[in-house]
């Protein structure tokens, strides 16, 4: 036979081709697939070195909300918002008062006998002295208020919908708006991929704002000029990761930062300089795929975390 060797070679190749095609056709089925080699697992990052944990959970308060929303502490009294109620609770967890609201708030701030709370693009002020509630001029339709900061002369709101901070007078007059953009090359401006955009004024009267997309905390003048910032973008314990973290932050009495993160749910403390200090609550304290807890601190540096998944306020005391 002419070209016998080539013919055998061709037949062998034809067999290989048929086997590969049939195998490819049969193998790509739901019960034949291999485990996902690209599964994204963060389990490794949930592990925390026990020596870094500086706080211990002591107690938790069941607050009775179907939809807990926010927590604030003022004069060592807890103000917890949820459903369409604000509950006033002492540090031992005893309910001392309750305020019914016209809306379900998303965030709240208490300052000088006034409770500021917001729902969507609407901001309300509840005056504790005469028990009256007033509503300020609503923001634009796309606005979404995620946090409020206040001192004697200024009220700031973080508008995640428009990625900006709006400054008001205590009477509700709009003073200015800024979007965090600094001079060329310094900072990007606020990057808000999701509705987490926190803002606080510390005891020194300094305005701090989270830039979650940059994993940074930024200090601005009240006019919106960037003064300083620190950032920790890292998958390690000392850093912030994911699209947008930290989700919430607050201050301890000595000016240190407490941060709460989503994704890898955890609470940590940072020094005034922004240097990582320790862990308050490790990821194993929270449910799988849980929400970042809102946080507040009392004068003794105890940290109160509103756990949205378990619907309780969890109290963490420093371990000395």
């Amino acid at each position, binding site marked *: 036979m002419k070209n016998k060797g080539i013919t055998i070679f061709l037949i062998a190749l034809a067999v*290989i081709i048929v086997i*590969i*095609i049939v195998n490819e056709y049969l193998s790509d089925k739901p019960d034949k697939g291999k485990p996902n080699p690209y599964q994204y697992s963060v389990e490794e990052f949930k592990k925390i070195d026990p020596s870094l944990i500086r706080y211990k959970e002591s107690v938790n308060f069941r607050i009775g909300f179907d939809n807990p929303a926010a927590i604030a502490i003022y004069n060592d009294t807890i103000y917890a918002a949820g459903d369409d109620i604000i509950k006033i609770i002492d540090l031992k967890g005893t309910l001392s008062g309750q305020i019914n609201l016209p809306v379900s708030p998303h965030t709240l701030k208490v300052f000088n006998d006034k409770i500021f709370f917001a729902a969507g693009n609407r901001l309300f002020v509840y005056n504790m002295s005469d028990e009256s509630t007033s509503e300020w001029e609503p923001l634009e339709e796309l606005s979404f208020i995620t946090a409020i900061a206040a001192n004697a002369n200024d009220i700031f709101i973080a508008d995640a919908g428009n990625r900006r901070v709006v400054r008001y007078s205590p009477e509700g007059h709009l003073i200015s708006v800024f979007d965090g953009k600094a001079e060329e090359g310094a900072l990007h401006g606020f990057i808000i991929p999701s509705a987490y955009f926190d803002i606080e004024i510390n005891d020194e009267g300094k305005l701090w704002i989270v830039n979650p997309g940059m994993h940074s905390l930024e200090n601005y003048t009240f006019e919106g000029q960037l003064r300083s910032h620190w950032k920790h973008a890292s998958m390690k314990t000392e850093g912030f990761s994911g699209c947008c973290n930290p989700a919430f932050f607050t201050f301890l009495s000595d000016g240190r930062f407490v941060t709460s993160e989503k994704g890898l749910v955890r609470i940590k403390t940072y020094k005034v300089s922004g240097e990582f200090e320790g862990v308050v609550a490790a990821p194993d304290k929270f449910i799988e795929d849980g929400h970042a807890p809102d946080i507040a601190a009392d004068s003794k540096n105890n940290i109160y975390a509103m756990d949205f998944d378990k619907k309780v306020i969890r109290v963490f005391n420093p371990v000395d």
Partner: protein
Amino acid sequence: MKRKLLYIFLTFIFCITALTSYSQQQRFPKPEFSSGYEQPDVVTPEPRSGGFEYLDVAVLLVVLSLAAWFALRKRSRQGILWLSVFTLVYFGFYRNGCICSVGSFQNITLSFFDAGYSVSISTLLFFLLPLIFALFFGRVFCAGACPLGAIQDLLIVKPLSLPKWLNKTLGLIPYIYLALAVLFAATGTDFIVCRYDPFVGIFRMDAKFHMIVLGISFLLMGMFVARPYCRFLCPYGVLLSWMSRFSKWHLTITPSLCIKCKLCTTSCPFDAIDFPVNEKEIVQSGPGTKKFIVYAMLIPLWIVAGAFVGERSHLYLSRANQNVYLAELLISDPEIKNDPDNIDVQTFLESGKTMETLVEEAEVMRGQFKTGSMIAGGFIGLVIGLTLINTTVFRKRQDYVPHRGNCLSCGRCMDYCPVEK
């Protein structure tokens, strides 16, 4: 002056499109951390941004025009060869074999059957341009504009001439492949022509090992059986062949009168040269007319038989559809829901879709497969019937001419012809 202005305008447009894609990339800073996570390889190349997809269309148009010019006017095998090298580099290795005319008919098919799926103008042009050129100039796309053809063409070493019966039998496979590809695309099940493309993995350098072996096997086979994929698998080749049979102009072996020197007889590695027919031999060979009538009468039977086989096989074919297979699997093996490693099952469970919805969708899909399989089977039956009839048809031919349907317009035969213009 006008030309200068045109150049300036085109440069400006080019800069704008480039700037747009650059600014889109830079509008959001990349998070500066690494988790050590290994990103999966992207299976298909990223779509072209802005006007670049039309650049590909323009390149295809130019290559097709040049191929037609080299094959019909210039009669230059050398030109076609270098053109196919360019095609291999540009459409193959640079554009990663995508977008590709060969698989484009699947996109077009799906757009007819799925109201939510639309094809871009560039995809439509990639589908139509080679067919239009084939209608006017023959299969010049296969000659110089197809990267799949080019990679095989460059590796032909010692082409063997296959027996006629084997050529005819293997030549049925592209029709079967075309019918199945249309069926699978129309039902939104899969684009099998892309999935089983043996060379795309080589172009992208990222295929699974066995697909690389498949590509290499085809190339090795192509050393002795020239362009096996083009001749015995390519479903788009079927459409091109249909068009080319009616082509207004077509490559000719001789530029003038054939002197029957027979020098070209062994020049075609694709067995696509029709020899002159000796009328006496045909008449002596048997009762052709009788055979023709019998075969013609058998055609409806072939169609019915094909439709019957299609109907019988629709259950098996429909299992290629993810919904059908998943529904059957979850019904027959409910425990598989607890397998955390089964990505498809876990994806279904997390999608929120109910089992009832899945089963309903699977039943609808089976119905579509039943109809589609019968049509596909009937089509294949028709093709078999016509192929048989074709064996009985006598065509008077006095010269050596390329077969208009099978000729890939590569131009090899032209170099063998001693006749001067």
